[in-house]
């Protein structure tokens, strides 16, 4: 209980609750209407997936800037599959999207792990390259909602007992990823690698393999997000997902994932993603004009990392004074 109250996730969850509360008081339909409730859950679901993948990579002290481009490619792939292979089962499309995402992620991971070069540069490169491939492939074509099967589109908007399918998928992913990171050796090793890569080497942890896995997971989740993007928005073109990488990194950072690795949880990243997008939706209701919303988001990101820093400084000062006492 004490650790729950003190944890970083709690703070940001509280912030989320406050935002929802205030907005609901101002306008009850924000929460208490069929669409309001649905959108509250639905809108952040895709970013949640991408942010979870991003968090896994950041925990290992890397970063993946190419996720936006991966989402774009897989979303377009989804549309193309439905158009070019009539009657293709939806599950196959999901598998194909995730497989493509995983492959792109694996390429990132391989370049980072074997090339021993910083992920920031590599994934900045693949951000361009994957986007280029997307534009080359899609050209000026686009996939329209009418090209996609109704069942598939329904996945993106309809709900099971008030909870949208997309949210259920995102929730499952968050829980599974969170469970894996907390309870599996592989997951703990990701933290260890991010906490001190040299020590991980000394411990004999399979650093290369783990980094590959982290990037692969990140890619696969971006791939899943791409498929769901197509289901939710119905249209995809060569620019789908542009700029998503900064949102994903921002969500993870707001959620308390340290940019230098080793600490933070996917729950935090997921809540961060929800907070980011919920604030976006709440601002117009709170009367903040459209144009100022980005400034608020920026302030939020900076506030979150400054707060995180202050808290961790306080913790380490506390640990030192504990040592003083015990010495």
């Amino acid at each position, binding site marked *: 209980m004490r650790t729950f109250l003190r944890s970083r996730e709690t703070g940001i969850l509280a912030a989320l609750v406050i935002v929802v509360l205030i907005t609901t008081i101002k306008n009850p339909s924000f929460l208490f209407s069929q*669409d309001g409730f649905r959108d509250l859950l639905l809108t952040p679901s895709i970013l949640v997936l991408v942010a979870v993948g991003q968090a896994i990579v950041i925990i290992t002290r890397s970063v993946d800037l190419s996720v936006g481009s991966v989402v774009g490619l897989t979303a377009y792939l989804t549309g193309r599959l439905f158009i070019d292979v009539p009657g293709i089962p939806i599950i196959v499309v999901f598998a194909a999207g995730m497989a493509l995402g995983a492959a792109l992620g694996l390429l990132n991971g391989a370049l980072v792990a074997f090339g021993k070069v910083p992920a920031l540069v590599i994934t900045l490169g693949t951000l361009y390259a994957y986007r280029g491939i997307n534009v080359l492939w899609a050209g000026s074509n686009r996939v329209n909602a009418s090209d996609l099967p109704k069942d598939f589109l329904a996945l993106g908007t309809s709900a099971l007992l008030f909870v949208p399918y997309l949210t259920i998928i995102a929730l499952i992913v968050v829980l599974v990823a969170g469970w894996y990171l907390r309870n599996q050796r592989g997951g703990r090793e990701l933290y260890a690698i991010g906490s001190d890569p040299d020590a991980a080497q000394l411990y004999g942890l399979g650093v290369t393999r783990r980094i590959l896995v982290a990037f692969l997971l990140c890619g696969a989740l971006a791939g899943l997000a791409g498929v769901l993007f197509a289901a939710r928005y119905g*249209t*995809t073109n060569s620019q789908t997902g542009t700029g998503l990488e900064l949102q994903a990194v921002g969500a993870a950072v707001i959620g308390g994932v340290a940019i230098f690795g080793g600490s933070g949880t996917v729950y935090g990243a997921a809540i961060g993603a929800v907070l980011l997008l919920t604030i976006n939706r709440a601002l117009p209701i709170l009367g903040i004009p459209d144009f100022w919303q980005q400034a608020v988001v920026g302030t939020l990101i900076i506030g979150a990392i400054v707060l995180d820093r202050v808290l961790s400084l306080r913790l380490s000062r506390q640990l030192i004074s504990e040592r003083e006492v015990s010495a």
Partner: protein
Amino acid sequence: ATGCSSSASTDTSTGAAASGSGDKNYAITFLPKNLGNAYFDTSDKGGSKAITEFGGTYAEVGPATAAADAQVSFINTLTQQGVGAIIISADDPTAIGSALNEARAAGTKVVTFDSDTDPQYRDLYINQATADGIAKIEVDLITKQIGDTGEVAILSASANATNQNAWIETMKKELAANHPNVTLVDTVYGNDDDQTSFDKTAALLQSHPNLKGIISPTTVGIAAAARYLQTSQYKGKVALTGLGTPNQMRDYVNDGTVTAFALWNPADLGYLAAYGAKALIDGTITGKEGDKFTAGALGEFTVGKDATVLLGEPFTFTKENIADFNF
């Protein structure tokens, strides 16, 4: 053309121009706001048809995302390639001005269509419909659907789109003058991006619980808004109209999400623009008021004030007639 053939692939325009009819440079390039936009795909196809008819060379280049500085680079390149005419939909009324003037100084004719620049930067503007005409039809459609009373909002493209802003201004005047019981409560910007338009629609409905209608005078916006409405509680309760293409809107009209929307035929717009360019190249017209030229199957057109040619009045699409159109 010099006839030098250092590289076959590099200079299709001049090569074709030389083989074209006589000494006229019929190399005509379309430069839409961005690639991957269904509306421009259709209009440019119309242009292509016209150019093929009179034996010129058609090309289409453009930035991946709508941005004025990217358009400038393309204008510069076309200037160097010495094309006969550029047919452009401007991302910014002034930012591309000096680049266009440079092109004109180099002998290239500049025709704007869809979205104009300031008149001093181009030779001819092909106007799809007058701002008055568009504003009036939009306002008529929405007020009729909501019973001439209640709140309406506008979902526009980017905040700087010349044509959009002109229409919005006129709509405001029209509403104030002839529909006292209808209030325009908000204008939001979807940046001609599916996802943004989609999310802005959701936010709009949330922030204005009493909203009765949405006008989206952009093809991307109206499709995204329709897609949101289709699966939301507001379907059938909130009216939606605007400018859309029949293929994108067919489903929504058939299932009752949208009753009616308007548009001119974008293919005709491109077709007319191409003939306008030809007339400029031929010297048939100079952009002077009263100049006349023949636009193939569309017949004869007269240049109006400010070197503007009007395509006609917009056409209203409804469930009854939408099956007759395919673009």
